[in-house]
């Protein structure tokens, strides 16, 4: 008996204007590059959200309730879908309405708030929960933090907020000899359970699918299903957690990724004693195998699987301390528009652009960066924050 728990992440930041200059400080309150943000949302919707969503909807109908999955869509992505690609929202509504798709909770602004302000973190989770309820009419019961950032403290906070499950990376250094393919429990919690990403099988799809130098290439649905079947007996479920953009954006259409997506569920279900489960079902079906202790924050990013994609260098640290220092002023001002801007500036992507790590991860950072270099993004971000501070 083996189950698959699928979760796809969707996020698009409000990118700030690359040409927001020193001379704009005090004079220009328009920070975000509407044109760029619109075109990115349209492009990704066309290449990924819409074609992949249609395949998933067909599969759910065809497999009559046997195929299930979950999404986490950041609040800022939902907002931008509403204004730039309403057909994408409609498609997600149709998916949720099948009853086979679970929506997860996260911070509305895809932020690092839990590391800086518990109050702000909770406020953003609440905003996101309300948004999901408003758009899809469902109440999320499972939680995933920005980029699967996770530590003991986060688990305690999230447990206190009533969630039943929390998702994170199955990083080697928290698991040691153990397998990610069981349900665990955070060390300091007694109610909430922990679902871990099987990063080998997840990354086979997300990163290696089209790599012709990889021994697994070409990856067929049958081959992949057999790898998962092999786990039966030494695990209860496999957490396949990845960016939704894997389908059509990171792995282009011509790699055959859509065919794979269309074929995999049936290939997997052909075997007896197999099932797709949502995160909430997973924690209902399986008892936690052990406690997991995560005193230092982990994430699913880069080789380090820690916070170093967003913090640690002077550019990132000065920016983060600057934006969170404004919290009390923003609250005191109580202006909804300014509060929303402050929160948009907390989105983790701004700090990701300032990353100075080099290696193949550096190349990934570069791919997602509309700035020429980390320093240029820092200067631009500071110009914006310096203007914003003047408005408080």
């Amino acid at each position, binding site marked *: 008996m083996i189950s698959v728990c699928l979760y796809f992440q969707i996020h698009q930041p409000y990118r700030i204007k690359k040409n927001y200059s*020193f001379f704009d400080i005090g004079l220009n309150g328009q920070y975000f590059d509407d044109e760029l943000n619109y075109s990115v949302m349209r492009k990704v919707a066309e290449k990924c959200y819409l074609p992949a969503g249609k395949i998933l909807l067909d599969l759910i109908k065809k497999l009559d309730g046997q195929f299930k999955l979950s999404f986490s869509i950041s609040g800022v992505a939902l907002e931008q879908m509403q204004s730039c690609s309403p057909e994408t929202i409609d498609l997600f509504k149709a998916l949720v309405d099948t009853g086979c798709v679970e929506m997860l909770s996260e911070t509305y602004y895809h932020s690092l708030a839990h590391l800086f302000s518990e109050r702000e973190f909770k406020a953003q989770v609440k905003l996101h929960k309300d948004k999901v309820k408003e758009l899809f009419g469902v109440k999320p019961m499972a939680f995933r933090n920005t980029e699967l950032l996770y530590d003991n403290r986060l688990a305690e906070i999230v447990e206190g907020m009533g969630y039943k499950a929390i998702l994170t990376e199955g990083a080697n250094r928290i698991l040691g000899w153990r397998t990610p393919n069981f349900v665990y429990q955070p060390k300091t919690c007694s109610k909430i359970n922990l679902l871990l990403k099987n990063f080998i099988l997840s990354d086979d799809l997300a990163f290696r699918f089209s790599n012709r130098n990889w021994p697994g290439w070409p990856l067929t649905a049958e081959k992949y299903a057999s790898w998962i079947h092999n786990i039966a007996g030494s695990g209860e479920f496999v957490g396949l957690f990845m960016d939704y953009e894997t389908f059509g954006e990171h792995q282009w259409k011509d790699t055959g990724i859509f065919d794979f997506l269309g074929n995999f569920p049936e290939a997997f279900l052909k075997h007896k004693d197999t099932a797709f489960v949502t995160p909430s079902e997973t924690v209902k079906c399986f008892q936690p195998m052990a406690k997991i202790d995560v005193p230092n924050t982990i994430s699913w990013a880069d080789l380090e699987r820690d916070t170093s994609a967003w913090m640690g260098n002077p*550019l990132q640290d*000065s920016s983060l*301390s600057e934006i969170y220092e404004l919290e009390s002023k923003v609250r005191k001002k109580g202006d909804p528009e300014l509060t929303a801007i402050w929160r948009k500036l907390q989105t983790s992507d701004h700090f990701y652009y300032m990353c100075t790590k080099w290696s193949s991860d550096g190349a990934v950072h570069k791919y997602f960066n509309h700035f020429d270099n980390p320093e240029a993004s820092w200067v631009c971000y500071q110009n914006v924050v310096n203007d914003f501070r003047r408005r408080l």
Partner: protein
Amino acid sequence: MKVLMFGWEFPPFISGGLGTACHGLTQAMSQLGCEILFVLPKTTGEVDIQGPLSVFGADGYPMKDRVVKVGEHSLNLYQEYVEKEASFKTIEFKSPLMPYQNEEEYYLNYEKMEKERLCSIDLKSKSNYGSVTSKVIGEYEFQGGYGAHLMEEVYRFGRFGAEVAMNESFDVIHAHDWMTYPAGIAAKYSSGKPLVIHVHATEFDRSGNSVNQSVYDLERHGMHEADKICAVSHRTKQIIVDHYGIDSSKVEVVHNAVVKNSEDLPIYDRGIKEKTVLFLGRITMQKGPDFFIDAAHLVYKRLKDVQFIMAGSGDLYKRMINRVASLGMQNRFHFTGFLRGAELDRVFSVSDLCIMPSVSEPFGIVPIEAMRFGLPVIVSKQSGVSEILDHAIKIDFWDTELLAEKIIEVLSNEEKTMSMIQKNNENLERIDWKYAAAQIINLYGDFYRD
């Protein structure tokens, strides 16, 4: 008097003070009746099917053909200059070479230019391009291994100098800074006319003690071949005498100036209302950006609202950004990147004090520009400009504590500052390119007086 002048930059295509100085000087000289043929290599990458050598000016050179091919932006700027300055012509020589860059940067520029050029060839008939090229530039094979090295370019420009000198008539040759010295020397030998070299900077200013030997050799050769040397300051003259073995009687100090428009200075919206301290210049070791940041940090801790601007770009740009971030000054320390044209006026007009902490500055035009905008200035004693600024505050570049103290004094003591600005304005009256131009024309005259 007709002058064949070799330069590297000319507005609007400038990367540093050299182009601005050449512009101010030549304009003033032509107003005094001096005819100038200005020759420069250029790096703007316009499509130019007539070959890398082209000529234009307002006096019948085949300019019309060229105008059509120049990109929209540069076209307008150039027309403006051409209309204003009817009395001298400019010859262009297409080259990726720019002053103040290392070979790596040069190579990147070169690659970019090659790409643009190849694109342009695709649009035209190849044979046409080729034949024109070989006709115009003779021995240079631009489509081959054209200039992968900075030094090589300098010598190529030198050979070009000889060619120009044979085709044009003139009385004096005048070469600005080391990269044009081979051209000046070649022109001198092919024409027999006297050579004046104009030293805007020396290798000792640019590189401190890690002098590039080939640049030094070129400078030294130029200085020894020259019949007369213009130095932009006494400081520079001293370096020429001490480090290049030149007799001090051969060197004349001609201080730079600024172009003063009669029009009122533009007024800009000022987004930052707090007192603002400006550093403007290339962000390189020579300009002392580190000392500015050190002093800024001292002031930052003592005065609550003061803002700082570092305007410019250069090889230390990223390092300075990281320093400011590490010091946590991001809420009051701003970077503008490279500024040109109206942006320069704008940054002066939104500042309250200008600092030039140069480690070694042959002249340094920035404080004078700042004074035009009514800014008090603090300059390092290691700058040539300090010789003609009687009322500026002068400090040693390394004395950041004193610099911080002076910044605080200027920003806090308004009465004293007002009187300093007043005196600066009087000082400014005495700084004019016409004096430099007259001095140089007089110096040319000496060649023919006997």
